[in-house]
């Protein structure tokens, strides 16, 4: 186990290195003089000078990278050119909002996706199975920004049950906080529920054909106990770790969902940064996202080994 852990962590180093190179090289894509482009329309000479100094644009590209990565490693992602706030501070403010949204979305995804997957596997070939598969197809094919707009139309404009936009922090008023985030969380969770349903279904189908399920049935156990105690436990182990890997989908989805519901989270931060040509913020957000994703992958791998006795060795 320790060996495995060490190997996995050592493997992360080159990946993280390439992630940082990739994100750093984004700024090489800027057409023309990057300082002029980053300065925006006003072309204030002071701002241009500041950018040149901040990015060390007078130095060769590899040297620029070294300065940049040195800063990143000590937690300095640069400064937002628009807000004059450090990128680290901005990310620190916005990340908890998205985390709340993401956690709610994951809960919703599990609550819908797993029962739907189990039912469709147990009732394979029936109308239930057909319905669950249709739901999964719908969930995968619906653009989440469209679903968001339609939900706002129904629940905010027509019925007036939920606020159309805005965000209330959990610490301020939990009820208002939940009602401001339930629609976007559902929009995000819906797509993941569909993916989870498909995986649960195929894992359950596989397990239901296994020998120990046949043994459990032969022992005369009730069907309920066979499915809930014997089949489900084994089928769900890989699904739990899969949930962690869907975080990428979740963060991608958060970009548009937060935009539509005007939620001041991580996704809205990157969109605003793109509009304001605040490139340091874009780089910081992508870098933090990738790091979170890589870390979760690692945790999922470890969890998978921990719950699977055959791999523990």
């Amino acid at each position, binding site marked *: 186990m320790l060996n495995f852990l060490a190997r996995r962590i050592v493997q992360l180093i*080159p*990946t*993280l*290195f*390439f*992630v940082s*190179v*990739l*994100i750093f090289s*984004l*700024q090489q*894509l*800027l*057409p023309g003089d990057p300082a002029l482009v980053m300065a925006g329309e006003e072309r204030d000479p002071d701002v241009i000078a500041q950018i040149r100094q901040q990015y060390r644009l007078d130095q060769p590209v590899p040297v620029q990278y070294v300065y940049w990565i040195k800063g990143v490693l000590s937690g300095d992602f640069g400064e937002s050119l628009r807000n004059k706030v450090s990128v680290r501070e901005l990310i620190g403010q916005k990340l908890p909002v998205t985390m709340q949204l993401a956690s709610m979305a994951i809960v919703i995804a599990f609550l819908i996706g797993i029962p739907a997957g189990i039912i469709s596997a147990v009732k394979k070939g029936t109308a239930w199975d057909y319905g669950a598969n249709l739901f999964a*197809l*719908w969930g*995968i*094919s*619906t*653009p989440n*920004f*469209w679903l968001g*707009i*339609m939900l*706002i*139309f129904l629940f905010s*404009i027509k019925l007036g049950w939920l606020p159309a936009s805005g965000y209330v922090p959990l610490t301020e008023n939990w009820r208002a906080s939940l009602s401001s985030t339930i629609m976007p969380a559902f929009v995000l969770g819906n797509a993941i529920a569909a993916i989870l349903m498909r995986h649960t279904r195929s894992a359950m189908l596989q397990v239901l054909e296994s020998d120990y399920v046949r043994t459990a049935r032969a022992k005369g156990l009730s069907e309920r106990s066979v499915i809930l105690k014997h089949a489900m436990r084994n089928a769900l182990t890989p699904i739990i770790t899969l949930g962690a890997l869907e975080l*990428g*989908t979740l*963060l*991608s*989805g958060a*970009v*548009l969902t937060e*935009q*539509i519901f005007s939620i001041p989270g991580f996704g809205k931060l*990157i*969109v605003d*940064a*793109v*509009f304001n*040509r605040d*490139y340091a913020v*874009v*780089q910081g*957000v*992508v870098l933090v*996202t*990738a*790091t979170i*994703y*890589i870390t979760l*992958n690692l945790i999922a791998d470890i969890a998978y080994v921990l719950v699977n006795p055959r791999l523990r060795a």
Partner: protein
Amino acid sequence: MTDATLNALPIAASDELESPARRALRRLFKRKGAVAGLVVIATFVLLALFAPLIVPFDPIATSWSLVRKPPSALHWFGTDELGRDILARVVYGARASLLAGAISVGIALSIGVPLGLLSGYRGGFIDALISRITDAMLACPFLILAIALAAFLGPSLGNAMIAIGISATPIFVRLTRGQVMSVKVEDYVEAARAMGNPRWRIALFHILPNIMPALLVQATLSIAAAIIAEAALSFLGLGQQPPAPSWGSMLNAAQRFLTNAPWMAIWPGLAIFLVVLSFNLVGDGLRDALDPRER
């Protein structure tokens, strides 16, 4: 009982005679979902190609007397905030969406497959290098990477396609590499090598054709993802630029007028949904049709 044995033989015989591609097509056409998907895609392709012949309205002609009119006998889908016909914009918008789906997946295939072949077949340092870069790109969520690339490249439909194409590339590198690894130990590859074929020839003519089915399935599903991504980028203003019609930017405008003109939001969203659903249906159908275990 006798029926079953009588039928079993000719089917098995015909299975052996027909080419794998033909068999896959026959099995694909047996799936209602996939056929429905193909029909919808064909319809949208025809709409996009013959848009000027189909809709009598100019998609960018504004009219102040027609601002946000609900659906009527003349304007079936209603009009938007500048008095433009929404049906015309949805039909012309199919061009941007389908083009973005096809071109960005084309970009991803043409970069990803050669790199995957090289990585899987050569192994060693090149493989390690390509794999780590792929890991790094996969660590950035697809849409976030596409948005970041599009932001740095500058907003336009062309740049959006490049951004989406590059973001979708690592999936193809990884898929191709994995497939090559499992195929290259097969006897027929060994035989080709024993006959003295050069490496590039083995990779292109012996390995590539055998991994095509997996690539085809992934490409179809990736077109669905690319169309959503294009709509997302256009929604954010990073794709198709106004006044040219695109489903994503139409939805963006629609959100501002949701209270007074909800019809503006329905049609472009429904169009994205239908096209994406169809590509997903065809992709799922292809996966089943090409699966050698399900004969």
